[in-house]
């Protein structure tokens, strides 16, 4: 639960960035270029004298937003594909699962790089691409769940009562599979944040001047040896948030699955 608090706190701080941040994210102060962390500039300043703490706060807004958005997309798409494949079985199942296999077999990061290089780099398209490349895990898990739930007595009963297929899947099957879906979704948030930062690092993410944790890091690499704080802090931000989300997923797994041995 502590992880949830940490995540919410950071997300709230980033959302409230215009209120909390001591400076404007693009305020250039040429008298305060490349300063080490101090009381005035908690995380130091970059080569244009912009306050890094402010930029990390603002960067978090997009990074976290991209994480949430693409996780939602991946979970939605994965659940849909998995549920349809598992419920209908047969030919539909084979087609969808072969498609999943194909999507799984193409190395994800290189493919992500290629796709990202096609789009104009705004937050939404980055989130969509990341989401569209990470639904396969959820699809497989959901399919397996649906396959076993499909033959249970309460589903039979619902069918006997004349419930529509959509209702059976939506109201009777999926709620029982919510555990693995939610756990998968939290892990997807962390992975998407890392994927965004990797893309930005290669210069394919959201473009400056709007900061994200990834492009802050990309800017920092060239001066890493002289101004290390520019590299350290944005990375720490990513690390803490992803860590919090993953712990959350882990906790949820134990909470939602009573059979899981907590280790």
């Amino acid at each position, binding site marked *: 639960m502590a992880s949830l608090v940490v995540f919410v706190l950071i997300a709230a701080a980033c959302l409230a960035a215009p209120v909390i941040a001591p400076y404007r994210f693009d305020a250039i102060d040429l008298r305060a270029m490349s300063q080490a962390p101090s009381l005035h500039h908690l995380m130091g300043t970059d080569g244009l004298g912009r306050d890094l703490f402010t930029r990390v706060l603002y960067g978090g807004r997009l990074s976290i937003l991209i994480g949430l958005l693409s996780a939602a997309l991946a979970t939605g798409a994965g659940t849909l594909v998995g549920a349809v494949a598992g419920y209908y079985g047969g030919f539909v199942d084979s087609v969808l699962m072969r498609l999943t296999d194909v999507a799984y077999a193409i190395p994800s990061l290189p493919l992500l790089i*290629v796709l990202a290089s096609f789009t104009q780099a705004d937050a939404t398209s980055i989130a969509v691409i990341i989401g569209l490349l990470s639904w396969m895990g959820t699809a497989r898990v959901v399919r397996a769940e649906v396959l076993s739930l499909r033959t249970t007595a309460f589903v039979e009963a619902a069918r006997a009562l004349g419930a529509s297929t959509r209702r059976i899947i939506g109201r009777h099957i999926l709620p029982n599979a919510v555990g693995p879906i939610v756990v998968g979704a939290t892990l997807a948030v962390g992975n998407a944040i890392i994927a965004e930062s990797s893309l930005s690092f290669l210069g394919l993410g959201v473009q400056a001047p709007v900061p994200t944790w990834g492009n802050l890091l990309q800017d920092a690499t060239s001066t890493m040896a002289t101004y290390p704080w520019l*590299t350290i802090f944005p990375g720490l931000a990513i690390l803490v948030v992803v860590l919090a989300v993953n712990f959350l997923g882990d906790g949820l797994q134990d909470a939602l699955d009573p059979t899981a041995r907590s280790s």
Partner: protein
Amino acid sequence: MRHVAPFRATSYPVTAYIGRRLLQMIPMMLGISLVLFAIIQATPGGPEAALLGTGRAVDPQALAAYRHRMGVDEPVPVQYVRWLTAALSGDLGESFSTGRPVSRMILERLPATLELMGAAFLIAVLAALALGIFSAVRQYSAFDFLGTGFSFLGIAMPVFWFALILQLVFGVWLRWLPISGRETVGVATLADHLKHLILPASVLSLRYIAGWSRYLRSSLLGALRADYVRTARAKGLPERTVVGVHAVRNALIPVVSVMALNLADLFSGAVITETVFAWPGIGRMFVTAMYARDYNVLMGILLMGSLMVLVFNLVADVVYGILDPRIRYG
């Protein structure tokens, strides 16, 4: 008497199984090639961009001739079929920016990438074994908690950031290790080579050490509670033998198949790692080709990467069957 079943004389020959799986790979590869081809076709730019990228005005006739030579003026399905038949004979076309055959470019860079992946894999296996076994045997000890913390960090850390931090610490501050390239120019000794390999290989292995050690830990905890372990203890075997031979051998079965599966996405990690450390492998070539919009090269590498995934999946299944005699090759 050992409680681990001996390697089974197969009633279903493994070779037949492998053969059938190889046949199943053909439609998969077709599907993959189709997807990749569709994606690359959707690229804005294309070969003209490579030519026009120089900023000079290009004679329309020269452009048309260029397009014709590269075969991009034909209908898309024709291009696909031609590309596919060529690819089957090992011809992946030529690079738009260098004009050299893509397959040769890949082959030149492959050793560097395999070396990096191999070293990372080795480090990851050894470290994960040590970490996983120790954590399980001393469950809830300080070491176990440290190990858990380390794994969570390892999984949550962006690969490139870890790489940057290692460069900063070992390269810039301590000056112990070189931070880029595969060898110092003019000093091609083995020691120099290894020095260059340490940082990138460690970076690439981190995530897998974290994942596998967790996996081995929980698998081993399960095995340590199994009846055959109690039997072994009851016979008075030394703890070392009980854990090392009986429990670990069985606990490794699921872990090994995960390892083989992950071997394939080591390649994704190599793209980032090679870029940060200027390692002259396929990953870095991929990023360079991406900036140049050199799509024959991108396609060739993606295709090779996918083939690698399929082969490693097959390896995972076969290894699983060898380690666990209960699995039948159906």
